[in-house]
């Protein structure tokens, strides 16, 4: 049976004011807040726990469980920080969500903050998206004016302030502890864990850091209940997910569907591969997860389904490449990225990304040596699990996975440049560029 699309967070994006308080209230927006404020905070956490909602930023940690780690009655202020630093190559779902479902986020933040007993919440938005930053500043102002933020929200006695914060161009700040350091006005470098943010986060106080889509999923769960949410998705990956499909497909875009939908189905919804071409490889969870090929099209896009085929669901934002694309070129480009974004704090990542990068570049240019192939595997193995945070692991992931399916292309890099094996101009999606 075909898995149907399930527009939920995106259900009213065809109304031009979907991002406003009026546009949101027209379809039941802020009714979940009223319901939650009438409940005990622990019961709100209970509902989210029961729903099985897992973090949508990539790691998939159970959301309700994360909230329950925040100590209560500890006398410290608590904080909610929304991670809107979407920067993972391939991921483009939080930015559209922030643009068109701004009030979903604010309602979700109020409910979450109430549950974890926080009176100040933050949205950390990457700095390069002024259109999103001004949108969220305006959304917060609008929510204050409507009485959803500030003192004594809806007469409940509960107070909450929200601060919008812009980053300044550092992928590492998507890592939650680096994000917290950045939000404290420091260089965005990861912290040693434990202590985890739930115990000592922002300003050394208990803090929940959640992804944009995770928080936006909360109001619908409160409105309709945990069982409703669990009726979508799979047993281990319940619920609805916003997928962004990009690359050599006919209709790149945002598709909201239950977890467990297959790549074949999603590709079909996206119109299939562009005319006259065929699928070569795709990357489901951002560049930090192992790539897959046509043989994996029927694997369910769920946390466990992706693990079974040796990769990770990650951000669930598939990038699709056709046969014109050189795998060596793509992997080299991604390693340029990790080298550029390594924060320099730990040696394996700081040094390793540069070493991988040099070897990949000479393979891409056709001047590699056969022993480079094994050397790359060795270096990746030395980085994986030995770096301070997941950025190092991510940098060590693309090459070994690509070698598994496309060893011949890397071997060719010992004598022929990727630009000679492949016509790079053929990969371009607009006309007029000759090779």
């Amino acid at each position, binding site marked *: 049976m075909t898995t149907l699309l399930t527009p939920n967070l995106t*259900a009213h994006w065809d109304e031009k004011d979907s991002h406003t308080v009026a546009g949101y209230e027209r379809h039941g927006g802020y009714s979940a807040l009223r319901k939650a404020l009438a409940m005990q905070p622990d019961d709100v956490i209970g509902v989210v726990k029961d729903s099985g909602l897992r973090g949508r930023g990539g790691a998939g940690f159970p959301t309700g469980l994360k909230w329950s780690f925040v100590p209560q009655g500890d006398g410290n202020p608590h904080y909610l920080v929304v991670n809107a630093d979407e920067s993972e190559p391939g991921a483009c779902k939080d930015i559209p969500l922030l643009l068109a479902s701004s009030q979903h986020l604010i309602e979700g933040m109020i409910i979450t903050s109430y549950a974890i007993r926080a009176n100040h919440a933050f949205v950390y938005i990457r700095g*390069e998206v002024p259109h999103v930053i*001004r949108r969220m500043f305006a959304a917060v102002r609008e929510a204050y004016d409507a009485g959803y933020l500030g003192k004594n929200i809806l007469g409940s006695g509960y107070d909450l302030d929200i601060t919008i*914060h*812009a980053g300044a161009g550092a992928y590492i700040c998507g890592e939650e502890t680096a994000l917290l350091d950045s939000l404290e006005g420091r260089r965005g470098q990861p912290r040693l864990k434990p202590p985890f943010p739930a115990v000592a986060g922002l300003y050394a106080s208990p803090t929940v850091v959640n992804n944009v889509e995770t928080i936006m999923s909360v109001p619908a769960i409160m409105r309709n209940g945990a069982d409703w949410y669990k009726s979508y998705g799979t047993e281990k990956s319940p619920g609805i997910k916003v997928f962004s499909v990009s690359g050599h497909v006919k209709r790149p875009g945002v598709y909201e569907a239950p977890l467990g939908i297959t790549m074949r189905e999603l590709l079909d919804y996206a119109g299939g591969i562009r005319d006259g071409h065929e699928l070569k490889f795709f990357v489901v969870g951002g560049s930090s997860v192992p790539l897959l090929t046509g043989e994996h099209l029927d694997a369910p896009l769920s946390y466990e389904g992706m693990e079974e085929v040796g990769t990770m669901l990650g951000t669930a934002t598939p990038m699709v490449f056709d046969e014109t694309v050189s795998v060596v070129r793509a992997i080299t480009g991604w390693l340029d*990225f990790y080298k550029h974004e390594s924060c320099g704090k730990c040696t394996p990542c700081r040094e390793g990304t540069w070493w991988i990068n040099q070897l990949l570049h000479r393979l891409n240019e056709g001047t590699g040596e056969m022993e480079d192939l094994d050397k790359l595997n060795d270096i990746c193995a030395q980085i994986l699990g030995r770096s301070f945070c997941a950025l190092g692991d991510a940098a060590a992931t693309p090459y070994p996975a690509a070698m598994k399916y496309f060893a011949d292309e890397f071997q060719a890099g010992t004598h022929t440049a990727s630009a000679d094996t492949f016509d790079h101009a053929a990969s371009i999606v607009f006309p007029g560029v000759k090779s």
Partner: protein
Amino acid sequence: MALSETTRAELESILDRYPNPRSALGPMLHLVQSEEGYVSPAGIELCADVLDLTPAEVAAVATFYTMYKRHPVGKHHIGVCINPQCGILGGEAIWQSLVDDLGIGHDETTEDGQFTIERIECQAACTYAPVMTVDWEFMDRATVDSAREVIAKLRAGEEVDSTRGPKIRSFQETERSIAGFDDGLADADGNCADDVMLAGLNLAKEQNMPFPEPSRAGEGS
């Protein structure tokens, strides 16, 4: 341009957003750039003074993040995403045409001070690949021709619209928006939903797929 008392007052106003003053440093540095065109030594001194930090502590932060510029940026900052998705789908070709046309390279500025160009990493807009930015406003689904046209228009002082609403102003004006000062442009294009954002929703409606929250779906359609 010297930093004025007004700038100091605006820098101080950012502190009100946070429980802890130092958190204001990020947006403060954006505001410095909007005044100076880059993070100037005077700007570092001023931030340090306002936050009671040493200039070295402020400089340590300013040099960590790629958006804080250490030398003056041109009137317009042009970014081309060269991360593999955008780069392969046409970003590298766009970049090369800019380099050829303007005669400058990465992080360099044209002699007339109009343009600074930068190879930028993933902008979370892969569904619009290849993506170019002008003063950090998005130029989705760019081509070599569209990039050339944008440059020509900006040169001629003509109006240029970004693809998500606001028209192009300048690098410095955008930096003020990023620092959190209202520019009145938040609703320039409604919710910004276009065929890319609506791809799934339109299909679901065309094929009468049931919405997860039926009552909400019924109200809207």
